[in-house]
């Protein structure tokens, strides 16, 4: 089954759409959720998944996106609180085996970890890359 996952992506901004396009191209079944219809314009023309328009903070919308059937959920909205809420609902209410979330505030990562949610923090990732680059310059 690992080669053909059913993935729900919450938020169809630059990051969400990028992930949706790439994962769809890789042959996975994708549903993207966003409350703005225009956000779906970010999807490429060969994106072969589904679009659900609605507020992911509502359980009914997550149900409509069939989160209960998902192998993986990725929360990518710009709002840490929404991401946390969606991730929590996916874990506790729908029993999604694997949940990933974007967190902007590095201090919140701990809360997510306690809930069993894997996180990616753009701030920490960017900071590490900057530091690496600075160190390399100093050495040379």
């Amino acid at each position, binding site marked *: 089954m690992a080669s053909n996952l059913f993935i729900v992506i919450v938020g169809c901004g630059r990051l969400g759409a990028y992930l949706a396009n790439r994962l769809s191209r890789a042959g996975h*079944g994708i549903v993207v959720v966003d409350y703005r219809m225009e956000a779906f314009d970010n999807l490429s023309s060969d994106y072969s998944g589904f679009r*659900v328009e609605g507020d992911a903070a509502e359980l009914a919308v997550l149900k409509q*996106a069939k989160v209960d*059937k998902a192998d993986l959920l990725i929360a990518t909205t710009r709002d840490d609180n929404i991401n946390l809420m969606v991730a929590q609902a996916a874990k506790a209410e729908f029993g999604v085996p694997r949940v990933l979330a974007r967190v902007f505030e590095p201090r919140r990562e701990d809360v997510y970890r306690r809930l069993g949610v894997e996180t990616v923090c753009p701030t920490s990732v960017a900071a590490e890359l900057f530091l690496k680059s600075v160190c390399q310059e100093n050495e040379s």
Partner: protein
Amino acid sequence: MEAKPVLIVDDEKNIRLTLSQALEALDLETDTAVNGEEALVRLAKKSFGLVLLDLKMPGMDGMEVLRRLRQTRPDIKVIIITAHGTIDSAVEAMKLGAVDFIQKPFAPKEIRELVTKVLNRDEIAADKARHYDEHVELAKKHINRREFDVAQEHVRQALAVDSTKPEAFNLLGALIEIRGDRLEALKQYRAALALDPSYEPAAQNVQRLVVRQQEGGQISFGKKQRPGEERR
């Protein structure tokens, strides 16, 4: 499982792709059509065992395909593909022997499970059925064949085994509605909803019947206005 090919009829490319990819794992041969007219051409040329049919298509819609299919090939099984909240023609489809619906978006596993269930339905023997699920499946088998009286008998048996699940009440409501008794049908739909308020097919049936009575024959939902749309 019978190995007859499956025809996928949908105007959206991604749906056709998702469905054929999902069915590959079942070793089923699939064919696709992009509209009603093309579907009828394919159906005339090849012997299909199952059709996955979208109701909303430009030109000839799914219901018309279903109507014509029933005149020529009543034995072919049909699964209806619907968008969220638009199963307002469920009873009409059931009159034509289509009782299985799959709502967009769908997970590949979900598609495979439903297709397997529908294809294996014929193998359930009436005299050996004991469980709730078996009786529900038998009821559906007879709805497929448009033997509504026998179907209703199986629904009643399902309810006798387990009266705590909404699906059998909803099916009973639909069978009663087919016979023309809307008020009694509504009671059964409401019973299904009382057991599980989140059971959507029953919620939609109640809404449809109530709206129809209030508006004098107009079925208006399915084209709901989106929030903010009136301002544009």
